[in-house]
């Protein structure tokens, strides 16, 4: 009976979402407070029913209810219970329900933390989110119902794809979806502002923390996916420019542009049209990603079992949501006006450049992702566009952005001084060049590596100096702790996120430029060396896991005769799905990862083995974590929390005068 209850819960949620999508927006249009007041309870009710449906699906997995075909297709009684829980979102239907859960969750959060917003704005924002929810709930119910039953109950399930039986995969989809769906809030705020005609600094201020949080989750989600690919796919790659990776990366790029553009709109009431467009684009690209993954138009390692009917549904949904909002944009945006003027060299113009480069980069990634699809669509053949294209267009477009990261913060709003920026950054530039040149010459690296090192030093030093200058202001008059406290958290957020980029660039440069890999056919006792490390294949034992059997090898790694570490790579065979899997063994270190993975065994008993030394790999992950931390700091700045702490409806035009310290952040 319970799965049917899940179905009913989804139908009820759809009903509530439909009302939420219509009445409050209509109420805001007519100025009817009673209809507008419906928005919050409806948002809560919708969330409640989706939580219920999701809970029922999870319990069906935990209790091995194989009468539900989705459970039978993605789980097995041998599967450990934590993977049975995560198997809930291991396939198309369940991951769609997870998406629902996130969407209604974000909607509920907006309902909770919007006490200080004018009622029409709340009604419109929640209404728009309700409309999106209608689309996804109907998609779930009409094309991808996770509660459908098997007529004949199979004795056991077909098991979860072994690639997904991993801790990283438990949390990667929820994080990623939090990011994707989080952009729906910025989108809803933008649409609400377009409908209401109030595109002002207040609107930017409300959208900002939500956008920053969504961006933070997306950063973490992409990081986890990449991290997983690195250790689970077994050959040490971590970014493949695969269509689905691109689908998550494009909203990230536009989202990055959006958080910068929002700051201009908030501080200077400028870039308004542009910010609205970016908010629409960020969410549109999230939706496009959904289409690409689930419609089967692109072949990808991530592709869900595809079904053209689903593809058609999402395409129509895309047309309504994206097409509708772009038409609304074309209709309302011309009346918005340009906002504050600024000089050719100013903080605004720097941020404008940042936006242009990020958007052009998104465009090239989009082009590369859709080019095979377009060629196929026009009958010109099937091809793959791979890393050679993406790397050759992506890197040159990112270089100016990386240079600008350290320049922008040193330029004043409205009108900056090129001379002053140069005076302040001269030292950083010289030290960075000297540092990069010294390392490049002593380690005999390529020009590419030297450039990467230069940029990383430039970004990190520039950001740290910026913070130091900020803390030095007023030295002597006020104690350090007081000066530290006076710096807004958003400022720390910016510095931290920028340092994160620097750390990331450093990691990518070194791991791409200086890694060593060796493929060898090895028998027990053989030794192979790479990057100054010797890897000895000691022994091979049999090993049995809950739903797989494995051969576990022992490798002794030494350097210059000194023992470094013992690694245990495995070759697993998952008995239900009958697939072999490689479990790489990795020794992570501050300056290098040692990576051993097992390939195939040859008839004479030798094993294909791949050993790798990947310098500074951990810095790539650390950089992403630091970036996300920066996002979190900025999102929890005092000025966003204040209004959440004041449940009293504020005066509509009340905005606190900016203190100079805030104006700079």
């Amino acid at each position, binding site marked *: 009976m319970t799965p049917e209850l899940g179905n009913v819960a989804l139908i009820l949620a759809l009903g509530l979402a439909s009302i939420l999508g219509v009445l409050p927006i209509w109420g805001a249009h007519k100025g009817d407070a009673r209809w507008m007041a419906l928005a919050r309870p409806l948002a809560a009710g919708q969330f409640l029913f989706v939580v219920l449906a999701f809970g029922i699906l999870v319990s069906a997995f935990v209790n091995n209810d194989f009468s539900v075909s989705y459970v039978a297709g993605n789980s097995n009684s041998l599967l450990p219970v934590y993977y049975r829980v995560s198997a809930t979102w291991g396939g198309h239907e369940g991951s769609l329900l997870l998406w629902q859960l996130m969407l209604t969750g974000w909607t509920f959060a907006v309902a909770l933390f919007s006490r200080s917003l004018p009622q029409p704005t709340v009604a419109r924002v929640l209404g728009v989110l309700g409309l999106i929810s209608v689309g996804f709930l109907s998609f779930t119910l009409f094309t991808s119902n996770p509660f459908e039953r098997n007529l004949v109950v199979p004795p056991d399930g077909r098991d979860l794809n072994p690639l997904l039986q991993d801790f990283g995969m438990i949390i990667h989809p929820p994080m990623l979806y939090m990011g994707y769906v989080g952009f729906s809030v910025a989108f809803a705020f933008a649409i609400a502002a377009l409908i209401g005609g109030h595109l002002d600094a207040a609107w930017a201020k409300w959208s900002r923390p939500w956008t920053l949080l969504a961006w933070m989750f997306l950063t973490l989600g992409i990081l986890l996916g990449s991290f997983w690919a690195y250790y689970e796919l077994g050959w040490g790659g971590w970014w493949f420019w695969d*269509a689905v990776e691109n689908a998550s990366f494009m909203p990230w790029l536009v989202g990055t542009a959006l958080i910068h553009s929002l700051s201009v709109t908030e501080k200077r009431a400028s870039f308004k049209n542009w910010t609205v467009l970016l908010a629409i684009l960020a969410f549109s690209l999230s939706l496009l990603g959904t289409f690409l993954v689930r419609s089967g138009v692109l072949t990808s390692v991530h592709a869900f079992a595809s079904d053209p009917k689903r593809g058609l549904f999402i395409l129509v949904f895309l047309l309504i949501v994206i097409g509708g909002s772009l038409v609304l944009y*074309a209709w309302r945006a011309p009346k918005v006006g340009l906002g504050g003027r600024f000089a050719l060299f100013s903080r605004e113009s720097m941020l404008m450049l940042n936006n242009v480069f990020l958007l052009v980069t998104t465009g090239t990634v989009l082009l590369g992702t859709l080019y095979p699809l377009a060629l196929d669509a026009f009958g010109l053949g099937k091809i793959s566009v791979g890393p050679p294209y993406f790397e050759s267009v992506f890197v040159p477009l990112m270089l100016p952005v990386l240079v600008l990261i350290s320049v922008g913060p040193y330029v004043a709003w409205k009108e900056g001084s090129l001379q002053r920026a140069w005076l302040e950054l001269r030292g950083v530039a010289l030290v960075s060049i000297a540092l990069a040149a010294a390392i490049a010459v002593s380690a005999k690296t390529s020009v590419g590596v030297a450039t990467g090192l230069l940029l990383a030093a430039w970004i990190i030093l520039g950001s740290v100096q910026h913070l130091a200058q900020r803390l030095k202001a007023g030295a002597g008059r006020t104690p350090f702790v007081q000066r530290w406290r006076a710096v807004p958290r958003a400022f720390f957020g910016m510095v931290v996120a920028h340092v994160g980029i620097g750390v990331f660039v450093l990691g990518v440069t070194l791991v791409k430029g200086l890694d060593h*890999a060796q493929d060898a056919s090895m028998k027990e006792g053989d030794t192979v060396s790479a990057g100054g490390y010797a890897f000895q294949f000691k022994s091979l034992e049999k090993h049995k896991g809950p739903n797989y059997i494995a051969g576990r090898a022992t490798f002794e790694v030494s350097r210059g005769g000194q023992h470094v570490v013992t690694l245990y790579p495995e070759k697993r065979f998952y008995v239900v799905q009958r697939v072999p899997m490689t479990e790489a063994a990795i020794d992570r270190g501050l300056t290098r990862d040692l990576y051993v993975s097992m390939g195939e065994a040859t008839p004479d008993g030798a094993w294909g083995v791949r050993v790798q030394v990947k310098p500074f790999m951990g810095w790539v992950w650390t950089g992403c974590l630091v970036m996300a931390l920066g996002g979190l700091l900025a999102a929890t700045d005092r000025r966003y929390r204040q209004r959440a702490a004041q449940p009293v409806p504020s005066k509509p035009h009340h905005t606190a005068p900016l203190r100079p310290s805030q104006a700079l952040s």
Partner: protein
Amino acid sequence: MKRYLLPFGLFLALASTLALGLKRVDASDPQEIPSPLIGKATPAFTLGQLDDPQKQFSPQNLRGQVWLLNVWASWCTSCRQEHALLVDFSKQGVLPIVGFNYQDEREAGRKWLNDRGNPYQLTAFDADGRVGMDLGVIGVPETFVIDKQGRVRYKVTGPITPEILKDKLLPLIKELKRA
């Protein structure tokens, strides 16, 4: 207002492409693209081999035989579709299949063949894609049928399907072998 409609216009173009793409999901079949090389001599080149950069390969080496040149790369997702078919086909020993590893990294290429089986008599390694350009490679995978005189007789763009193999390639190979 006109320039504000630009994003919408771009989106419509994108959406039509997606719609066309969707229409083809069902009826998907790799296309034949007319290649200017058909009927002409295979461009001369010499490349190191994937396994051993010291060993050279040139199309001259296979003069007098009918053979397939299959362009692939480890980063190419559609290559995975045809790879199993190629491995099976190579076991029948109908004709030599030469791999052409295009714009790839040597290790990644080797790993790919290690993991998925190697249908190739040998694989020429074209790291920077220059020879690929001479061959007019527009995408990966591509497969050339080359006759005894070293002329390109046919080209498949996209993965080889069982139908293409049965209906197009095998009859042609049979005919060329008899000539």
